[in-house]
């Protein structure tokens, strides 16, 4: 025996499917549009069958092929004639289409053999049997029925804390198009429907129509004088378009009014002779309540009739449980409380309560799974056995080949499907995974095409599935397709290296690279970057913004990369001051011939600077070159200092040679004018790049291994000390995560400058971690106090700080204490921990 677990709310307007698992209920969402509800509508289009919301769209325009509300006809001999098929379908078949579609919501790979399906309290035996048959037609081997009010109560009881539930309960179900109320009696474990009432033509849709007809149209007539509007506006009148717009706006307004006192509806009214008028109308909750009050009264009357018929007073009713989307309306709840004086219970989700209750019931319902050899050979099971037989044999015989372009610049792409084997009675369905495209069930043929619409600039994923005539999926034939739109050009050439922009890293008085186009992206590429000016450029001054576009590895220092485009905007070029923080837009396009089209727009001065660069032209900005030169010089010097502490004499000698070579260009560099026309700046730039590259390679694999060890040591240090951080823990943890998230790439590149960069960042973070660890700070402070005064730059100030720090520590003012220790650190001789690297740093001016 197995538990059923699956519960289905097969509604007149909408249907849902849910599953009980591990004590909880999951409501499945439609892969098309991610809604929990499926419209109970079936459309027999010329070439396909649509089920759900898409089918409902045709209900007014194609009534001979599109059917809804067929639940009302269950158990009758009514048949629907489908013009497109030239045949009749029964309400049972239509319901089975809805059930089959609900099964496609399941994404857990399960093919349930059994389900609990809910039915209205009013269903007689014929109607109940018809529902059961629909379930069997949809492929369930066992179908259990449950009355909707009972299901709703179960959903509520599973949320309720109340222990004793004995007595009478009311379930008030006001949905999109129907209303039902049921009286339930609970005694011990027995739950029974005593009485019920309903109206199949009363629900939320009527409220939307009332908003349009009773509020919006009179207001429009008053504003525009279009007197015949009321007669002409309908789903078939001359103002049909406006009618649909208003209906949509009315539905939105209705939802807004559930949580606010008034809302506005705004739309454009097209008038004669091409004129138009913008109309804004306010709807208050009070007005909305007025127009629906008559309909709500009808529902309350039905509740009162039930109470009267059963000789019950309000006080004998435990609670009234609300179900159905329209019970979200506050007025409905207020009226029920005022008129009936019964506690209103809104604990269960009104939309999914019935499906949820059905799933709870299914979680405790057992069935015997059907083993084919044990099956009793009734007519029905013989059919299903034959189906299974043909499914299994054909499954092996069908061979499906899909042909399509994997990458395209087109907005749609053709899929060619070739099928080998007997396709009779089989259907296919193709869905784009975001739910924006769905062919519906289509007959499988030996050869056919589908045009697949594509979303721009993303990988479009599609799933192709094959089904039997009864809607059972042949899982082995499922295929996934991925088509990249706009990302690749078939004959485009890939970028050999990352393309980056150099931006200021003010925190470290240096510059850093920011990726624009990734290595291996196929040309052409286009992007606009939005940045801020990082320092004020005065109009008429020699200050300048430098837009440096570089080719190289995004993780290395800018100096190691090749400048492929450079635009300098000097103070003399701008019409007014460009203030720090003002916006700057840099648009960059690299065409297929690798020409770079760069345009810079300064929002504050509203100026545009354009240039087209060829990669064969070298671009050098003299101010940037000077900065880079100084940075490299400093880096080499500090590396030499570190090497002097180790035994690596060979590396030290090589590093000295590099420094000497760099220094040999210093004289020329200092003489360089910004408008230099000679080739000196190119010579120096080439030298700087080459020396930086050589420095990266210095020491070969041995140095890299040593650096990797250093990296891990620095990483471990931060990781070990982070838990004991007292101040700014979250901020520091995030910083750490950010650094190590690209660890794999950093280590794989085996590039010295990348590793140096990462180690520097980790070491810096290590210091930050220590200086935010209260224990360390107290220890460090103790050391400072024991130091000789000669180790400070201004001991008088230090003494004062000692007093303040002592006081802060005594009063447990730890933030103040930390600040004092920081200040003392700055007054120590030779402290480099927090000193900026290059006081004259100018940077690019782009933050």
């Amino acid at each position, binding site marked *: 025996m197995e538990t059923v677990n699956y519960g289905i709310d097969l509604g007149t307007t909408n249907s849902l499917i849910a599953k009980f698992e591990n004590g909880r209920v999951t409501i499945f969402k439609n892969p098309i549009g991610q809604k929990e509800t499926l419209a109970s509508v079936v459309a027999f289009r010329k070439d396909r069958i649509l089920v759900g919301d898409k089918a409902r*769209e045709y209900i007014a325009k194609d009534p001979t092929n599109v059917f809804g509300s067929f639940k009302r006809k269950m158990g009758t001999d009514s048949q629907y004639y489908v013009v497109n098929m030239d045949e009749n379908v029964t309400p049972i078949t239509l319901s089975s289409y809805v059930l089959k579609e609900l099964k496609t919501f399941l994404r857990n790979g399960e093919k349930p053999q059994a389900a609990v399906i809910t039915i209205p309290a009013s269903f007689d035996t014929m109607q109940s049997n018809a529902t059961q048959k629909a379930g069997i037609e949809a492929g369930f081997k066992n179908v259990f029925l449950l009355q909707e009010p009972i299901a709703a109560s179960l959903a509520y009881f599973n949320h309720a804390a109340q222990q004793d539930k004995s007595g009478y309960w009311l379930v008030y179900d006001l949905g999109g198009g129907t209303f039902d109320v049921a009286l339930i009696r609970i005694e011990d474990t027995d739950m029974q429907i005593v009485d019920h009432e309903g109206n199949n033509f009363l629900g939320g849709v009527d409220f939307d129509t009332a908003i349009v007809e009773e509020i919006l149209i009179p207001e429009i007539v008053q504003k525009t004088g279009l007197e015949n509007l009321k007669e002409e506006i309908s789903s078939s009148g001359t103002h049909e378009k406006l009618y649909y717009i208003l*209906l949509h706006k009315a539905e939105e307004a209705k939802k807004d009014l559930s949580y606010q006192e008034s809302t506005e509806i705004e739309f454009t009214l097209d008038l004669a002779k091409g004129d138009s008028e913008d109309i804004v109308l306010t709807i208050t909750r009070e007005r909305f309540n007025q127009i629906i009050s008559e309909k709500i009264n009808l529902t309350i009357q039905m509740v009162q009739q039930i109470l009267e018929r059963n000789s019950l007073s309000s006080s004998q009713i435990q609670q009234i449980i609300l179900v159905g989307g329209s019970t979200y309306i506050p007025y409905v709840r207020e009226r029920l409380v005022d008129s009936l004086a019964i506690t209103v219970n809104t604990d269960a989700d009104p939309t999914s309560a019935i499906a949820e209750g059905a799933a709870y019931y299914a979680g405790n319902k057992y069935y015997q799974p059907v083993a084919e050899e044990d099956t009793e050979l009734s007519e029905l099971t013989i059919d299903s056995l034959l189906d299974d037989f043909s499914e299994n044999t054909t499954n092996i015989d069908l061979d499906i080949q899909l042909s399509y372009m994997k990458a395209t610049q087109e907005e749609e792409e053709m899929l060619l499907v070739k099928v080998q084997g007997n396709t009779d009675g089989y259907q296919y369905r193709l869905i784009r995974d975001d739910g924006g495209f769905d062919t519906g069930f289509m007959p499988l043929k030996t050869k056919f095409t589908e045009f697949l619409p594509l*979303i721009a600039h993303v990988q479009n*994923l599609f799933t192709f599935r094959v089904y039997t005539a009864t809607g059972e999926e042949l899982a082995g034939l499922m295929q996934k397709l991925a088509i990249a739109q706009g990302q690749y050009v078939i004959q485009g050439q890939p970028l050999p290296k990352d393309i980056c922009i150099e931006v200021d890293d003010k925190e470290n008085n240096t510059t850093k690279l920011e990726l624009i186009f990734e290595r291996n992206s196929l040309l052409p590429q286009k992007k606009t970057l939005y940045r801020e000016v990082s320092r004020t450029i005065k109009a008429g001054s020699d200050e300048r913004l430098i837009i440096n576009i570089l080719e190289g590895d995004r993780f290395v220092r800018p100096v190691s990369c090749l400048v492929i485009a450079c635009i300098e905007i000097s103070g003399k070029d701008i019409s007014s001051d460009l203030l720090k923080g003002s916006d700057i*837009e840099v648009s960059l396009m690299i065409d297929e011939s690798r020409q770079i089209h760069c345009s810079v727009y300064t929002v504050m001065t509203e100026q545009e600077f354009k240039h087209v660069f060829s990669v064969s032209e070298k671009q050098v900005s003299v101010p940037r070159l000077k900065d880079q030169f100084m940075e490299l010089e400093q880096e080499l010097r500090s590396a030499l200092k570190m090497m002097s502490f180790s035994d690596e004499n060979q590396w030290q000698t090589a590093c000295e040679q590099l420094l000497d070579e760099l220094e040999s260009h210093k004289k020329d560099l200092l003489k360089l004018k910004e408008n230099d026309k000679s080739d000196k700046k190119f010579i120096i730039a080439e030298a700087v790049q080459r020396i930086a590259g050589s420095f990266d390679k210095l020491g070969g694999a041995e140095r890299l291994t040593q650096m990797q060890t250093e990296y891990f040591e620095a990483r471990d240090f931060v990781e070990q000390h982070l838990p004991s951080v007292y101040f700014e823990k979250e901020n520091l943890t995030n910083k750490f995560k950010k650094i190590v998230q690209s660890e794999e790439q950093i280590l794989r590149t085996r590039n010295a400058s990348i590793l140096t960069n990462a180690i520097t960042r980790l070491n810096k973070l290590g210091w930050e971690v220590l200086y935010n660890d209260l224990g360390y700070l107290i220890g460090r402070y103790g050391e400072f106090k024991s130091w000789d005064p000669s180790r400070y730059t201004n001991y008088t100030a230090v003494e004062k700080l000692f007093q303040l720090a002592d006081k802060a520590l005594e009063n447990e003012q730890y933030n103040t204490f930390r600040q004092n220790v920081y200040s003392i650190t700055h007054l120590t001789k030779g402290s480099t921990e927090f000193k900026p690297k290059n006081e004259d740093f100018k940077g690019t001016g782009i933050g």
Partner: protein
Amino acid sequence: MNNDTKLLNQLFELKSKIDQENLSDKFERNFQRLFALLEEEGLFFKDPIGELYNDARTDVEVSIVGKESSQMRITKVIKPIIYKKEGGNALLLQKGVVIIEKA
């Protein structure tokens, strides 16, 4: 409806009004900037106005004006189609709400 969707709906309405008043050129850069900022968060919308419609288009909810025909075109967009890019793929956050008419 989450705030991302609401924000894009407002932006779409704003753009539609500006287009209607023939002021698009004046605000083009601002819109580009807004769209770029949203795209950094993976959000973007599609205005399907003028596009052909068929039954397989489940990215829009339609109301049919006039008689149904084999060639239908989107003539009015009440709400745009909203996507969110996640890991190179797109998620449909909101179906477009449109009116279609005979092409």
